[in-house]
């Protein structure tokens, strides 16, 4: 069977070339030999050469120069230089410049020569293989990105398309409930009240899905600004105080001393706090909510805790909390109907701040949602 020619020898001494063919007879690859530069170029253009071995001292061209030419034209081909001891400097320089993979000194040992060529072919194959992998990865990556774009586009379109009919449903219910088209009795109001709460939940769900998609895709720019965390917390508590009071719950704060101003997107931080404090109110029957801050400057962060006196969360559920659409069995009548996305959004926002969010709970005692925010910026930029 004809062997594929994979190695090219260029040497202007006929005697050396003659010996080569015989030497490689038993090797699994074919070898092309020539004393002519033109012929060597022709072979390179027509055969699938993996390794080129060139003598350094030739009348037509210096070996290093020829190999440089090979490198420019066929960068993947492994190049080996044949040198006498007197050309040592040239060989060393060629290796340093990356023009040559190895050099073989004359006179050579047959076993050494064969070994070097074999290694060179292996080297070529390895590089080629990893290159294919890289290309495959890149194609897969590009496909994934394209798919992600489509999904994003789809989510955003669907959200917008859903809003229009939803607006009609919501408005229709509101008109009746607000008695803009005549009186309704208590039973009718209750029935519509249930429709209304579902519609409002659907609206929140659409908003949350769109919001989460936007944050996840990095489309939402975070507006970081060095800010007073306590003031942001105060703002949120102010807005939730009435709700807590109506349920007989207290909200108190335990602000740590020397909590520094830190870079944050206040709008987004309000979103996180609203969510966590809102949840705490929703899932607490008796007692109250404590918002606590701690200065951990030595570890370059501050910690915010939202502590409730609710019934707690089972340990096996704690890790699931921040996944999308995870609603833990609460045992409570969940009258407001969460979207199952609130905590996932909180996690994204805290992560984009370069922070971390988690929950600790003691069933029967209460739950603490905690997040830390870096003092020095090390937020995730997209």
């Amino acid at each position: 069977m004809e062997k594929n020619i994979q190695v090219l020898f260029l040497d202007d001494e006929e005697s050396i070339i003659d010996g080569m063919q015989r030497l490689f007879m038993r090797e699994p690859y074919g070898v092309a030999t020539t004393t002519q530069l033109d012929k060597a170029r022709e072979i390179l253009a027509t055969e699938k050469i993996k390794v080129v071995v060139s003598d350094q001292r030739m009348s037509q061209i210096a070996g290093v120069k020829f190999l440089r030419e090979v490198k420019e034209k066929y960068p993947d081909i492994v190049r080996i230089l044949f040198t006498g001891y007197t050309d040592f400097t040239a060989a060393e320089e060629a290796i340093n410049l990356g023009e040559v993979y190895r050099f073989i000194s004359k006179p050579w040992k047959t076993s050494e020569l064969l070994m070097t060529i074999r290694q060179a072919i292996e080297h070529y194959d390895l590089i080629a293989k990893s290159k294919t992998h890289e290309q495959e990865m890149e194609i897969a990556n590009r496909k994934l990105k394209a798919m992600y774009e489509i999904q994003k586009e789809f989510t955003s379109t669907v959200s917008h398309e859903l809003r229009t009919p939803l607006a009609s449903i919501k408005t229709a219910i509101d008109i009746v409930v607000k008695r803009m088209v005549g009186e309704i009795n208590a039973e009718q109001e209750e029935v519509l009240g249930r429709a209304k709460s579902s519609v409002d939940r659907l609206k929140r769900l659409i908003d949350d899905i769109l919001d989460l998609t936007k944050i996840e895709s990095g489309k939402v720019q975070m507006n970081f600004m060095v800010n007073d965390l306590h003031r942001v917390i105060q703002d949120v508590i102010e807005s939730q105080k009435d709700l807590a009071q109506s349920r007989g719950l207290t909200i108190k704060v335990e602000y740590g001393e020397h909590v520094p101003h830190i870079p944050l997107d206040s709008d987004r931080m309000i979103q996180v706090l609203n969510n966590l404090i809102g949840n705490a109110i929703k899932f607490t029957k008796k007692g109250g909510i404590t918002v606590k801050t701690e200065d951990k400057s030595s570890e370059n962060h501050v910690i915010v805790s939202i502590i409730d006196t609710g019934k707690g969360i089972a340990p096996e559920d704690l890790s699931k909390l921040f996944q999308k659409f995870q609603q833990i069995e609460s045992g409570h009548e969940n009258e407001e109907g969460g979207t199952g996305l609130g905590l996932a959004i909180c996690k994204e926002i805290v992560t984009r701040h370069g922070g971390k969010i988690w929950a600790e709970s003691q069933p029967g005692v209460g739950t603490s949602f905690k997040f830390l925010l870096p003092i020095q910026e090390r937020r995730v930029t997209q």
Partner: protein
Amino acid sequence: MSQAKKILLIDDDVNLQQLMKVIFKSKNYIVETANNGLEGLEKLETVKPDLIVLDMNMPKMGGLEFYQKICEGQEHPKYPVLVLTARANMEQLFKQLNIDGFMAKPFEIVDLLTEVETIIEKKSNAGIKVDARGARVPHKICVVENNPEMLNKIGSIFLGSGYMVNPAQNGTEGIERIAGAVPDVALVSLGLEDIAGDMVILKLKLMAKTQDVKYILYTPKSAERAAIAQKISQKEGIERFVEFSDPQELLSAVKEMLKG
């Protein structure tokens, strides 16, 4: 009481259109309806509304084309326009239209009525400094700046002086945020990437809700811009034009302005 006001409602979603009609009628508005821009134009031949409530995506003629038609080559239409949006493309909305207000679908009835009333009466929402309990609420400012470093610098100057700061990083976001939570003062950078700062202010000045906000247009000082700056500072709607070498100068400008 003055004469009943007239609203032209243009929306291809007949359900919502009819429902809004019920809402407006309950407040004694006279309501005319159209199913698309083309029908809207026909209506305008016989009806002179005090306000047009306009949907964007419609068959035959959408909101954008209708808007351009009623502008008749002018920069502003003859009638005040409130745009209803499913929040699809806000940038295009702010860039291409000079609207008097916008309302996201779905909306709360009371918000829709307040917005309509505000536009028709050109009543102002801004400038409320004392809350229900009578406590002094810190002044709210909004900073629109696309250079994060500068945004941070300006923001911390105001935060450090006890202001509430709402930051935005481009013109579209700025308009949304300023209309969403109306500030006392808006500081707008001239060199915004999506919509130029002076245009942002112009659009906000046209919206009923945000017309009374005090606007400061600013830019860091540079010699070659001096001539352009001169021109811009004379534009309408801009309370003050500040060219600073130190962003601290913005703080004194705002302080002075709020005193007066």
